[in-house]
């Protein structure tokens, strides 16, 4: 499929207000007047901490929540107005990859069964046809030899392998857009690069668009061209990923950047942080991490 066949996703002026049950009529505005577009074949990142509204946006884009106001269109389909049949059509073209590779797989289904279902459900394939594609899909996500993985149950796989199965399943309906909600945050640091490379490669070879949701700016930098930083439901900063991260203007973006764990910056940031710290007198900790055992012991 070439990128030109892939429709654009447009989110315009979307808000979502939740009503909180209980005394009084409290409301929470989870998403507040957000607009952006994912052009065909583009990779856009939605970045923010918990509660910034990024997952609520993902749910509205995939049709599992409806916007309180505003409109989401995918090609010429208006997502907010879809019902059962239309949603099914949408889900063929828009697939999600979830955060928790343990929770998103049925523990009783083999990898083969999990990966062949979208072919049957969305593409009208026969059992044999769908089964015939399993090897190809598993190879695409790097689970080789495919025959060996096909027979396994989720508990027999590592976290990174499970996440690859989720991606293979998402590819099973030949989607145009993949919405990946924190796909690597539950994986070991050592496995993240592999899954991120896979997503980047799929985007290149299949021409599909990617909406990548994360709180991790390093991974956003690696696979997106453009990012939106969300704070409490509002877009506080947006632009080319590299540009935004190198020259952040919003305080919240800077806070997110400073929170990225980086062993190479550990000593430097330690110093910076303790300089700003309230109790400057306890400065014996800086620059000499190994000095710990001899400093500041009082209570036992």
């Amino acid at each position, binding site marked *: 499929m070439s990128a030109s066949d892939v429709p654009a996703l447009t989110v315009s002026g979307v808000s979502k207000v939740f009503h909180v049950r209980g005394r009084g009529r409290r409301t929470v505005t989870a998403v507040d007047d957000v607009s952006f577009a994912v052009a065909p074949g583009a990779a856009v990142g939605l970045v923010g*901490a*918990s509660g910034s509204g990024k997952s609520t946006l993902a749910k509205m884009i995939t049709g599992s929540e409806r916007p309180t106001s505003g409109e989401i269109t995918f090609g010429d389909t208006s997502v907010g107005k879809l019902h059962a049949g239309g949603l099914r059509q949408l889900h063929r073209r828009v697939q999600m990859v979830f955060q928790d590779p343990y929770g998103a797989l049925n523990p009783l289904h083999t990898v083969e069964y999990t990966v062949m279902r979208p072919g049957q459900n969305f593409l009208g394939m026969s059992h044999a046809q769908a089964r015939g594609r399993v090897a190809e899909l598993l190879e695409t996500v790097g689970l080789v030899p495919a025959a060996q993985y096909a027979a396994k149950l989720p508990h027999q796989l*590592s*976290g990174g392998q499970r996440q690859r199965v989720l991606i293979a399943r998402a590819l099973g309906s030949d989607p145009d857009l993949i919405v990946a909600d924190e796909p690597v945050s539950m994986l*070991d*640091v*050592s*496995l*993240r*690069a*592999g899954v*991120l*490379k896979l997503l980047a490669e799929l985007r290149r070879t299949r021409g599909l668009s990617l909406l990548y949701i994360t*709180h*991790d*700016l*390093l991974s*956003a*930098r*690696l696979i997106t061209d453009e990012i939106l930083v969300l704070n409490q439901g509002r877009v506080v900063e947006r632009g080319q990923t590299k540009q935004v*991260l*190198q020259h952040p203007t919003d305080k919240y973006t800077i*806070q*997110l*950047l*400073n*929170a*990225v*764990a*980086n*062993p*190479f*910056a*550990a*000593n430097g*940031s*330690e110093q910076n*942080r303790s300089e700003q710290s309230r109790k400057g007198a*306890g400065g014996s*900790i800086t*620059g*000499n*991490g*190994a*000095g*710990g*055992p*001899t*400093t*500041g*012991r*009082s*209570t*036992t």
Partner: protein
Amino acid sequence: MALLEARGVNVVYSPARGQRIWSVRDVDLTIAHGEFVGLVGESGCGKSTLGFALTRMLRPPAHLSGGVIRFDGTDVASLTGERLRRARRDGFALVLQSGMNALNPVRTIAHHFGDVLLANARPGDELSGDRIWRRAAELLEAVRLEPAVLSRYPHELSGGMRQRVSIALALSLQPRLIVFDEPTTALDVIVQQAVMDTIKDLQRERGFSAILISHDLGVVLEATDRVMVMYAGRIVEDQPSRVMAHGLHHPYTEALLNCYGDPRAEVVQLGGIPGTPPDLSVPNTGCSFAPRCPLTEDICRTQDPPLLSLAPGWAACHVRARAAHVEEEVGSVR
């Protein structure tokens, strides 16, 4: 004398008859008074199991199959029953990954403190409800939470707050060693940073020894004095945290370091570690990391390297130890 000294610790899981998984193999370690040590490795490397073994929290099918664990001079590996309970009360605490699951959903936070304080009351302690309340409020203050949290239920708190409550509970008996098992893994980056800052401050203010278990080397290096890297049940490197980002290391440590980068850099490249860790139910010959290692030589496939000097610390790598040795000799000739 060190606070904790472990020699030849081995942990075996026997999930079914005839099935054995050697999860922790021949681990020696020493934790000094007031020292903050990191324990880093991928999922399944045995780091949590080791943390559980050191605090005597292993449950079947895991059991300590060998080794001596000396805590403040007492061998806790052989204690049972009331004596073990007392050693735990006076000595160590464990903070688990998921503050959510560690708390009882149908009890208020105050009730949790009451449980811990009453169950571990020492003879002569007078614990009225009022006193427990005040003590709990102090502990919450130490972890930067309002006393109002005491009358809340766990579900009313955010993930970061729940983790802070878990830490306050661990502090309640004034332990001399706290093992933090992935305390911030379930939290987002900003909350993670705030919780880690609190842990660091508490450790410095109160001077307890601490072990921070995590898969995230970046987080560990920012907090600890020394870091031990674990792979396939063994400690493969032990270094002061401040030297970790530079110089030669065990190839596994180097691979872990390559998984990090600065999102602000001009060019960002991220390495992963290809392959998977070995199956621990099969006794291995040679270095466990050899199949994934770029430096593998013949000796690596036949001899399992012990911890060898790699100044200023130690690493279990034939190739790196030889390089370091040559460097030292060249240095002494000069």
